[in-house]
């Protein structure tokens, strides 16, 4: 009964409804933004670890496998 009463409430005017609509869309964009920020942190971590592996592969005695080749490629691209 109480639910029916609230359903029959008149529409909110634009100046009152505006903040609610803005808040709903901001929530969506905030969620996406937070997700992108987390992804960028992960990407930075992966990049850092790749750099570490590159350093290891450049050390003397590193295997001359694909990891070694990767290191050579990295050196070439940096030079």
């Amino acid at each position, binding site marked *: 009964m109480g639910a029916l009463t*609230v359903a029959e409430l008149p529409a909110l005017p634009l100046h009152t409804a505006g903040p*609610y609509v803005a808040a709903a869309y901001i929530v*969506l964009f905030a969620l996406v933004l937070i997700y992108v920020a987390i992804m960028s942190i992960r990407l930075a971590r992966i990049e850092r670890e790749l750099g570490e592996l590159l350093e290891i592969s450049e050390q003397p*005695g590193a295997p001359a*496998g694909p*990891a070694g080749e990767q290191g050579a490629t990295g050196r070439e691209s940096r030079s």
Partner: protein
Amino acid sequence: MYGKGLRILSIATVVAMAAALALVFFYAPLEAEQGFLQKIFYVHVPLAIVSLCGFVLGGLLAIQQLRTRDPRWDLRSYVTIHVSLIFALGALITGSIWAKGSWGHWWVWSEPTLVSFLIVFLLYATYQPLRFAIEDPERQARYASVFAITAGAFVPMNFIAVRLSTAYVHPRVLGSTSNLPAPMALTFLVSLTAIALLFATLCMYELTAKHARAQLRALRRRLAGDGERGHERRPRSAAPSPPAGPGIPTGPPMPAGAAMPGSAMSGPPRPAASGLPTTGMGAPATEGRG
């Protein structure tokens, strides 16, 4: 592996989102009863639908995991449920905002649709703790798959039960889009497509990141000479550990003297046959959670 087509998917998502926003604010007419407030409908309902579909999809992917025992299906199921949970949170928050503007209350406990959605959300909120509680990756995948299938079956049953209930306060969307005026129906469908694309894009990003991380871990293991033993000492994590894939070389390990700068592998080399447990390539406990 998972990165294929990610650029096209991302562009399609951005275009669809822009189109949906343009339609919502410049094309769709104002609704007679709720006026401008009804614009929340175009974000709240697609978020709810996509999250519920994502939960069901997670269950279907979990069936594949149980059938094949392939950890990749477990990863897909995990990522789908993970992103669905985020979307469900968005649906709950936007729904609350809509309820406050429309009904004057942030939450109405007598409304079955709201409460049932909250139950589904809370049910899936236990998914990650369940995974984290199980250390053995195989058992973790198996139990998580059983959970995903059971909960995934609960979602449509819950949906049907709510629709059969007697309350008619909550606006009905599925099955009644024909009642919407054409511009509103078009806007809704474009919004739904945009949110679905966003879901797919985020899932693909997550899968790509996890796969890249697994490849890095495998490469680290190989360079440090831990070989396959690194697999045995995976840091405890709720996230499944995907196979590194064919890109990881299987050549001879690096000499034990080669140190890992900036990681727990730095320092004096361990004797190869010391019998000490490896530390999953010196990965801190948080590494695998990403």
